[in-house]
């Protein structure tokens, strides 16, 4: 086991260095874009713990992000018993609220497996946006809630976008380490045992209810933190900020990143952001192929590109980016170090 540790540690160090230095080389606007990638990354880490390591499918993580986002908005705009909270302190609370919601969803999930769980969580994703519309007094209805623009604290001399970048990626790295420690430890082994065979796991004395709801709770905590950061970065929340399709995009990112590859989630997150906002660029690339002329600004292009990428990745590369890297790396090390 010890020999397997150093590649992950060095990968983490490399990521940390890149994250710390990147804003020096890119524009303020790019820093904002990268911050949003970081938020998707956090949400995907949570989804990876749930789906990749525990084997439970969720098509409703957009709803947990929304819960986090709304918690932050309500606490910092309306306050808690009239006492408004600073946006920074609402982040852990948002995570906890979403995490508790996750535990609650995790209880019925115990009796539902595979496809049924996918259906129910999909239902959650679809029906959640109805709640803010119905209870508009509390959630602000379709107009939503407007937050104060995020300001760097302690008189730090950075721009808002750079501040959000460092905040997001700082939290992301902490949560990455936490996720890594979790999946390597006793809990993680229990998660994986349940994923591989529930019957075998129970026979080995692992409590299914405890670990399956725990996985849901932790995973929703991650999504809640991501949603909270998303609300802070956008400075407003409404039902359209967390659309139904967001849950689907998260699953896309998870699949592309490679289900149980924590580092792979960075690739997944980048892809979600890129395809959502730069699908017209992809359409221009495709136009270089002979006999094709797509109008990059045509509606529907993002969905088409998303769909094709998703299908191609799942058919050709079922283990995602993480699996590919692992395979290449495995090839390299086995050639170098095995005596045959």
């Amino acid at each position, binding site marked *: 086991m010890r020999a397997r540790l150093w590649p992950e540690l060095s990968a983490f160090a490399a990521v940390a260095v890149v994250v710390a230095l990147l804003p020096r080389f890119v524009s303020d606007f790019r820093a904002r874009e990268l911050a949003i990638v970081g938020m998707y990354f956090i949400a995907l880490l949570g989804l990876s713990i749930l789906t990749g390591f525990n084997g439970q*499918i969720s*098509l409703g993580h957009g709803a947990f992000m929304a819960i986090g986002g709304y918690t932050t908005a309500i606490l910092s705009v309306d306050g808690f018993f009239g006492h408004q909270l600073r946006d920074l302190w609402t982040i852990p609370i948002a995570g906890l609220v979403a995490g508790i919601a996750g535990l609650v969803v995790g209880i019925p999930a115990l009796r539902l497996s595979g496809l049924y769980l996918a259906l129910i969580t999909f239902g959650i994703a*679809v029906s959640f946006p109805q709640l803010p519309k*119905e209870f508009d007094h509390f959630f602000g209805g379709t107009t939503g809630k407007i937050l104060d623009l995020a300001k760097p604290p302690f008189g730090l001399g950075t721009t808002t976008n750079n501040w959000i970048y460092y905040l997001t990626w700082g939290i992301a790295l902490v949560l990455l380490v936490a996720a890594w420690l979790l999946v390597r430890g006793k809990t993680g082994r229990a998660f994986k045992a349940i994923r591989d065979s529930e019957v075998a796991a129970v026979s080995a004395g692992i409590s299914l209810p405890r670990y399956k709801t725990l996985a849901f709770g932790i995973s929703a905590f991650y999504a809640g933190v991501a949603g909270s950061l998303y609300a802070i970065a956008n400075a407003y929340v409404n039902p359209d900020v967390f659309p139904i399709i967001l849950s689907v995009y998260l699953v896309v990112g998870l699949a592309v990143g490679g289900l149980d590859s924590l580092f792979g989630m960075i690739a997944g997150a980048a892809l979600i952001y890129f395809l959502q906002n730069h699908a017209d660029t992809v359409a221009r690339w495709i136009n270089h192929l002979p006999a094709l002329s797509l109008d990059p600004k*045509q509606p529907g292009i993002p*969905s*088409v590109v998303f769909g094709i990428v*998703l*299908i191609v990745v799942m058919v050709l590369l079922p283990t995602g980016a993480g699996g590919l890297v692992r395979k290449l790396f495995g090839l390299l090390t086995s050639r170098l170090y095995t005596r045959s």
Partner: protein
Amino acid sequence: MLLAAFTWTEFAQQLAAGIREGAIYAGLALAIVIIYRSTRVINFAQGEMATFTTFIAWSLMNQGLSFWAAFPIVLAIAFTGGVAIERVLIRPVENAPVLTIVIITLGLALLLNGLMSMIWGGGNRQFHGPFSTRTIDVGGVPVSVQDIGIVVVSILLVVLLGFFFRFTKVGLGMRAAAVNRDSSRLAGVRVGWMLALGWGIAAVLGAVAGMMIAPVVFLDPNMMQTILLYAFAAAVLGGLDSPVGAVVGGILLGVTITLLGRYVGFIGSTLKLPAALLLILVLLLLRPGGLFGRVTVRRV
């Protein structure tokens, strides 16, 4: 006030509306069940597939064809399309985990939705169905001919399917392939083609459902998205592998949701979807197999 004012005539009207609503869910739920039965896959693209074929029907009718002239052409296209999707997309990942297949059908849904926006553009379209919207009087309750037509069509579909699965060689082969692939292969059933056939039939059912729904709601690329969720709920309610269950579940769900929306002021029109979700959640906890489904017992 929790309960709105109540009259029997209005109740009957709401009931009729609920049954119509339910018959719509049932059509799509049938398609979901057929695919689930034959391939153990839930097709998240079923709604977009149905809408896509309905758009094809719309285009054909725009070219001057009558509904009944376009109908068989659309069904043929749907069948071919369904078989092609199974062959090209699903077959390579046949033995992959559930999640992989779910993700592929999600990708297919996104792709088809985008293609529809590209080809036909957004915006609502009027779709003229085969039935008139004239209302007739049924026991003192005004019901539109269209509503009756939709209900009759979905009942007809389930009878036809029942006949097909019980009395034809191909239908029996499909059931055999779903129950035990290896044994059916030994008995000479071409299992691969049976699965493709399942997708083809489901696409046809979806096309029929789409063409029944489009006159009621307007035709646009996202027409089926909420209906698909209700259809999932209906299929789960009836037990995922029972066609009769899909229709009963659909109508039960339609009636419940319509009545709840009308008479429980708190639910109104916005909370119908969460209410439906809660309904199936409770049912799944009490009866994991649904109303008509078989509970599978796993051997360790």
